[in-house]
């Protein structure tokens, strides 16, 4: 079941169309990667989902119902540009932000206690935000985002500004939230994050959605049916159906080749051919990385 669905969203700024007929379905419980180059329209889409701005055309549905003010408290948003009141105390600030999301002061207080213990930041309660380091501020901001236990969490470049240790901490929190049933939308350029965390992705380029679906299905779609072999010997005698797309030498002196198999052939056919001809050192399928897919999809869209 989809927690969020956008249908034919279009958003026009004065001279610039930020979103053009974008339809997305975000399954409940998924970690959804919203990808795209800078200026593609990701932030515009996120702002529409957060009801910061409205679309010029199209609709957004939250659990099947048109998105409305009552959904605000079910969404948590961590913008790319982080910000807190600098001269306000950490505890008061978090209480305030939680109350704006509809929690009572007591509810907010109870939840805050848990988070302050979890993140071991109890001593920060009455510190001014400006007295914290940037990484510490990020932690506070993350708590502010998840404190009201949103069903949908929108994280815009969540790991920027974190050192590796804190980035891991946040990553574990995200996974824990996912396991508890929270749906997470990730907006990022960092493909290793997508590779690791996301199970669904959508790619937006020049205001249009050019790709979306489960990560595995997309990888399948972008498979080139090529296999990498490292070997000793001569491979020039392969049947013409099996084409060598790339050849070279590995660092330690072995020959290397990427071989594309015909659509009707099985992998084992290639293995049989290889065994008869060369000493195989390594064999594997070339599975496209998210990075490859990203570049390839955008490259082909540009044409």
């Amino acid at each position, binding site marked *: 079941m989809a927690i969020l669905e956008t249908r034919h969203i279009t958003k026009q700024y004065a001279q610039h169309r930020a979103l053009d007929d974008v339809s997305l379905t975000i399954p409940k419980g998924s970690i959804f990667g919203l990808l795209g180059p800078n200026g593609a329209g990701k932030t515009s889409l996120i702002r529409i989902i957060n009801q910061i701005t409205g679309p010029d055309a199209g609709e957004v549905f939250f659990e099947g119902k048109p998105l409305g*003010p009552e959904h605000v408290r079910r969404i948590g948003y961590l913008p790319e540009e982080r910000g807190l009141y600098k001269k*306000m105390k950490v505890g008061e600030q978090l209480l305030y*932000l939680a109350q704006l999301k509809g929690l009572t002061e007591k509810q907010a207080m109870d939840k805050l206690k848990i988070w302050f213990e979890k993140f071991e930041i109890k001593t920060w309660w009455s510190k001014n935000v400006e007295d914290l380091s940037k990484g510490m501020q990020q932690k506070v901001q993350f708590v502010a985002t998840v404190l009201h236990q949103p069903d949908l969490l929108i994280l815009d470049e969540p790991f920027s500004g974190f050192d590796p240790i804190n980035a891991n901490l946040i990553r574990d929190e995200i996974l824990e939230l996912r396991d508890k049933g929270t749906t997470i939308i990730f907006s990022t350029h960092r493909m290793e994050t997508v590779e690791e965390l996301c199970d669904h992705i959508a790619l937006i380029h020049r205001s249009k959605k050019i790709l979306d679906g489960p990560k595995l299905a997309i990888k399948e779609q972008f498979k080139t049916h090529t296999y990498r072999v490292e070997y000793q010997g001569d491979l020039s005698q392969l049947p013409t159906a099996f084409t060598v797309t790339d050849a070279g030498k590995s660092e330690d002196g072995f020959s290397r080749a990427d071989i594309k198999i015909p659509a009707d052939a099985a992998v084992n056919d290639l293995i049989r051919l290889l065994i008869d001809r060369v000493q195989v050192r390594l064999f594997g399928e070339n599975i496209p990385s998210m990075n490859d897919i990203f570049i390839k999809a955008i490259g082909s869209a540009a044409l």
Partner: protein
Amino acid sequence: MNTILIIIKREYLVRVRKKSFIVMTILAPLMLAAFYGAIIWATVGSVSMKKVAVIDQNGQFVNKLKGDEETAFVYVNDSPEKAKKQLVAKNYDALAIIPKDVIEQPRTVQIFSNKSVSLNLQSNIESAISKEIETIKLSRSGITQQVIKEAKTKVSAKTINLSDEGEKSTNSIITTIIGGLCGFLIYLSVFIYGAQVMRGVLEEKTNRIIEVIISSVKPFQLMMGKIVGVGLVGLTQFTLWILLTIGVVSAGSAIFGANYAKTAANTRSMQMSTVPGQSDVQKKMEDSKNPVAEMTAAIKTLNVPLIAGCFLFFFLGGYLLYSSLFGAIGAAVDSETETQQFMLPITIPIIASIALSQLIIRDPDGTLAFWMSMVPLTSPIIMMIRIPFGVPAWQIALSMGLLIAGFMGTTWLAARIYRVGILMYGKKPTYRELSKWIFYKA
């Protein structure tokens, strides 16, 4: 709790807890009291009697120079040298020597003093002597004392207000002061608290917290919460100022009032002992009321509840009208330095109101006064200047109605600029872009 109340609460508490707020709230009345104290001290101080020894070499001035509350003349028959020596011993403030040919050469009068002679004392002596010379010259040309006496007429008008409650004495100086003060306070509050709204909006924008907040609340709620919150800060500060000022002033006047009575009594007894035959001056002194009592009486003739009520209304109306515009400026730009360009057109009507207030006071029922008290951009200040002089009820009602419409208009306008502006970073917008923002779809 309603989200807008949560916002109001934060905006209010954050500002009220600031050290600068507490310091300003306590210091301002003390400074005001010190200022008033200095004025009262200066006034009371100048009342102190100055004794002037007079050597009349001409012989026509003996017992003729008229002293007043500030100066008493004592005639001495000593030589100038002896008198100069005795100046300190006999406790004279100054010695005036009137030469023989003073009537022909009035510039030859000399004043000696071991202290520097104040301008006031000098002019008192000069005018006393010149009046006498005038009388002498007139009687020389054949005009009798009787005619001169009859010709000297002193006009002192009493202004009387014709109103429904019958005739009332008014004091146009007090009316002017009350009106001017109310207008000036509104002017100040618009600037102080309007700028606070602007800085608050700008802070949220530059801190980038704005995006987090407006994902929870509507931009309009945030803007209104801020405006109302800061407005309450303003009301709190004004109330505290008024209470503290009343406290300080009444404490101060208890001390000063006693002093004043003592000085006045001194003056009177001195006058009696040193100046014989000045019964009219004496009488005047006894008649003249204590200025504090005079002021209280004048204030009683004003419609205080009406003025207070109108002040509250125009204070809030003016604040709401301008603070929303200030908020829109804060949203449109990226830094405080960039606000200047947009501040100018907004501040022009406020500054014009204050600049023209002299004209309005001179003619509080004129065409200029009428129109400026109707236009919402200037009415909060101008109407408050006019009200103590008495304004027809329909004009007040119309002005209030227009002000309400005015701030609803500016709030609407400001909200539309605000919701676009807070998410715009980078370049400084032009007026053309701002006008486009107004028509953007949310």
